[in-house]
């Protein structure tokens, strides 16, 4: 059995069985399923498995090579940790959709052709939307609706691209695609939506923070990383990605500084980290690609850890805005320490995981001579520390004491956060296990004096900047405000234009109606004039006029007869 099943099938069957379980049993079940899945995955040999056909198109459900294995492994770990974090959740919808979502993400990275990829792409979209709706608030309902519209459009774009590619190249195999064709370009943008490229990103920062405490943990792990995998598989070395990725790394940090909802800060920081991966994929050298995928691996864990700590805070206090939190280290000391581990990892402190993976992308950019890209990524690295590394722990757990006193997070949440933190520290201090899993040969030494010293200088002086800006009062305070982003286009401008158009149509309709009414009235009064009691046609007529009308009728008959 083990070592023979398609990995996504284990999750789908798990979800099916889970639909009949409840309470603690279900909570244990959603941790068990990824563990069984993991045992199965580790026993599977590399190669192509489970091939089928649909409408004469080949389907490959299990293409296992170094690249897809790494992501499948990562997703099993993330599903397990997320399941543990959600142990106290008593909501079947969340557990089932998390299992379906994880299974679909694993299915997507193991897909060997674009049609199979499309199928799992859409299952992911639907399953993940339920994690947002599971919050069961009006805001979450609407955010989830916007979210699924964007996700499904990405799927439709992927399907269109696949069909065009099939016509152009005669195959739907999912290997290097490139931008040389229309089909390739469509697929490129389908991946771009899920990857949250600039201007296509607002679904992420809109919807993720509206999900439940544990829902956001799952959301942050899968969708964007599947997109990173898909870009690495299909568009490695595609130069525009370097600039797209650089923009992704830079612009969100400005938003992150002024955003109040701490989970939304993390959502912006998620885009920033994916930016580094996209740059690596765009550069396309072995070092850069290794950097991109190893950073994806580390990011799922440290970003998951940070989302878990903020989820624990939300769970315990019911609040998530920086303006309302502060001083929580007194009630939640363990969560505080684990949050700092996540913060150190995302900031790439030596001995923490970001240090050994993000630097590969930076080194590759330097090696290939992308000077301005390198400097912008360095700016983004300092910025990450500033908003995710300092701001998150500072405003939640320190800052001014908000007076909130609560309990430490439940033991299951602490265990889940602890597991993620342990992997962050392990990968950072002993990166060689992760490096041995990388798809391309690794020729990179993270722990050189130059790297350790320069990175420490960068981070400490960034911390100094934060301290001084705080002390001088120049740092913008956390305010109960939201910030406009691209979603303004469809949340405000679109509806406003719609209302304008509707108003115009209504006015036009009213005018037409009025003139039609006037015409109808004049017609009726005309008829009344002729046929009414006083009307010409209602009078009794003399015989003479009757003879005239008979003559007219007969002439009419004659004419009809002649010209028929």
């Amino acid at each position, binding site marked *: 059995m083990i070592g023979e099943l398609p990995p996504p099938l284990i999750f789908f069957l798990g979800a099916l069985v889970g639909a009949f379980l409840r309470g603690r049993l279900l909570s244990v079940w959603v941790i068990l399923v990824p563990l069984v899945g993991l045992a199965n995955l580790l026993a599977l040999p590399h190669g192509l498995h489970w091939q089928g056909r649909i409408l004469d198109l080949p389907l490959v459900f299990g293409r296992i090579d170094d690249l897809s294995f790494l992501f499948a492994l990562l997703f099993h770990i993330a599903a397990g940790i997320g399941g543990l974090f959600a142990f106290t959740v008593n909501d079947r919808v969340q557990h089932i959709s998390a299992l379906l979502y994880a299974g679909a993400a694993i299915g997507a990275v193991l897909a060997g052709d674009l049609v199979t990829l499309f199928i799992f792409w859409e299952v992911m979209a639907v399953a993940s939307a339920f994690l947002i709706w599971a919050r069961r608030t009006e805001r979450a309902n609407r955010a989830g609706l916007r979210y699924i519209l964007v996700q499904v459009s990405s799927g439709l774009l992927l399907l269109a691209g696949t069909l065009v590619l099939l016509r152009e190249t005669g195959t739907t195999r999912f290997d290097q695609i490139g931008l040389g064709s229309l089909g390739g370009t469509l697929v490129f943008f389908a991946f771009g939506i899920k990857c949250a490229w600039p201007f296509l990103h607002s679904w992420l920062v809109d919807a993720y923070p509206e999900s439940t405490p544990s829902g956001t943990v799952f959301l942050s792990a899968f969708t964007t990383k599947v997109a990173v995998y898909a870009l690495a598989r299909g568009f490695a070395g595609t130069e525009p990605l370097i600039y797209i990725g650089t923009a992704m790394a830079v612009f969100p940090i*400005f938003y992150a500084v002024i955003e109040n909802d701490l989970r939304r800060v993390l959502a912006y920081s998620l885009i920033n980290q994916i930016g580094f991966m996209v740059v690596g994929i765009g550069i396309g050298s072995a070092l850069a690609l290794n950097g991109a995928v190893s950073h994806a691996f580390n990011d799922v864990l440290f970003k998951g850890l940070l989302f878990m700590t903020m989820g624990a805070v939300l769970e315990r206090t019911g609040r998530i805005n920086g303006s309302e939190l502060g001083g929580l280290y007194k009630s939640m000391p363990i969560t505080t320490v684990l949050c700092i581990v996540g913060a150190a990892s995302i900031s790439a402190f030596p001995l923490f995981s970001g240090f050994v993976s993000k630097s590969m992308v930076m080194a590759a950019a330097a090696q290939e001579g992308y000077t301005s890209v390198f400097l912008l990524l360095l700016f983004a690295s300092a910025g990450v520390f500033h908003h995710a590394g300092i701001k998150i722990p500072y405003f939640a757990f320190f800052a001014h004491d908000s007076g909130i006193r609560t309990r430490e997070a439940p033991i299951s949440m602490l265990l889940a956060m602890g597991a993620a933190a342990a992997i962050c520290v392990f990968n950072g201090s002993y990166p060689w296990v992760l490096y041995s899993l990388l798809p391309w040969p690794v020729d990179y030494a993270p722990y050189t004096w130059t790297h350790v010293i320069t990175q420490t200088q960068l981070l400490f002086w960034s911390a100094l900047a934060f301290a001084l800006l705080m002390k001088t009062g120049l740092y913008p305070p956390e305010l109960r405000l939201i910030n406009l982003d691209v979603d303004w286009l469809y949340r405000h401008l679109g509806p406003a234009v719609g209302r304008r158009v509707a108003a115009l149509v209504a006015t036009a309709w009213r005018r037409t109606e009025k003139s039609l009414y006037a015409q109808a009235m004049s017609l009726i009064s005309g008829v009344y004039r002729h046929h009414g009691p006083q009307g010409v046609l209602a009078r009794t007529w003399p015989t003479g006029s009757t003879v005239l009308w008979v003559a007219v009728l007969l002439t009419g008959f004659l004419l009809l007869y002649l010209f028929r």
Partner: protein
Amino acid sequence: MAHHRDRKHWLDEPRNVSKILWALYTACGLLLAIDLFYHRHTDFAFESFFGFYGLYGFGACVALVLIAKELRKVLSRPEDYYGEAPDDR
């Protein structure tokens, strides 16, 4: 909320906070000084300028915060701007 039963924490003492800040200042000074004593193997010439990484990080963060502050003037709106009241959870 058991405010009155709170024990005093180490960080509640302003003196201790300034101890941390002084530790940070000292660390930054030392990290800058290291640049005098070792030679960096770098890809770009500018990387080996004295204090490049520290000063770049400092400048980056100050610029980031000041620009973001200006952006807030343009971008920020009340919480119910989209007609969705913030749910009091």
